[in-house]
């Protein structure tokens, strides 16, 4: 029962995978990728939790170290920024696809390409 946060992140990961496979709209697939990103971040941060640990900041409330593992948090900080970059670049690519083919559905895009060729 103590592993419930792992299960939460797995379920969010499952939702993301379900979204990628079931949805036909490319933008919805991109958002699903973003959801998977969030799930992985939750999982990595949860790996560093120490029982009764505080946030890893020396302050007036916690003058001596009684901290959770700060290394996963630093890595997740990197991952969040990369996620923002991926989302921005992916969405502008989708704007291009929509301008060229008039649709974001992979099947319709394939049909349009065959007609053009």
């Amino acid at each position, binding site marked *: 029962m103590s592993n419930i946060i792992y299960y939460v992140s797995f379920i969010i*990961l499952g939702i993301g995978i379900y979204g990628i496979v079931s949805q036909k709209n490319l933008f919805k697939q991109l958002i699903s990728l973003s959801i998977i990103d969030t799930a992985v971040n939750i999982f990595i941060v949860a*790996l*560093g939790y120490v029982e009764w640990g505080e946030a890893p900041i020396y302050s007036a409330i916690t003058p*001596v170290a009684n901290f959770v593992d700060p290394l996963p948090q630093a890595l997740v900080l990197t991952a969040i*920024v990369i996620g*923002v970059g991926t989302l921005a670049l992916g969405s502008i690519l989708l704007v291009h696809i929509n*301008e060229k083919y008039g649709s974001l559905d992979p099947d319709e895009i394939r049909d349009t390409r065959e007609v053009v060729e």
Partner: protein
Amino acid sequence: MRRVWAILVAGVFLYFLVGQFLPIIPTFGNVDLFTRVAFDIINKSTTTNYNAVEFKKSKDLEDGSANVVTSIVVNYRSFDTLGEVSVLFCAAIGVGILASMLKSKKRIEFEEHKVLMISTGIVLPLILLFGAYIFIHGHLSPGGGFPGGTTIALGILLLMLSNNEFKVTDVAKHVEQSAGAGYVVIGLMGMAIGGVFLINFLPTGVVGNLFSAGVVPIVYTFIGFKVGAELSNVISDLREG
């Protein structure tokens, strides 16, 4: 049919993760920090002997920032952060190029609203001030260059929503370039003074003071400016089309 397949694929992934992966990782909260690298980093003694750090008392440590995550991001793994900033830079450039290649140049116009315009004038300086506070106090409190820069960019977004004439000028690009160059220059200065790229060459001071932690606040200020200008550019590229 598609949904059935989707449920099957997601179920296989979940089965693999729960059945094969969960047994080999430690249970939640049951982590032995002494065996991990983070123990040395928390006590700021990766090269010296173990010494307990105390708030407002310990001084002249190898890294003086009170926020341990900041000390990892900007001090121990600073080269990694330089790469991360470069990735964000590449993404912003890609968005700019792709947005300028669009054939239909349609600018997104919003409906101007009196209440939003006037309240933006009141709230915007506070948002910018708060963003600057976040990245200046990045070594003392939660936050740092990336959240601070994002807050500033969100202030710019609010300005765009309220005012149709507002445009992000080239100043943002110049700020971004000089801030990115400043980060590299700090790294090269560390190389000239300490012999290692991006080494912390300034005195680290007492843990918990505003003027402590050597180059960490300087680097985080650069990152804050860079991320703020970059994300404003991305937002404006997506809007101008």
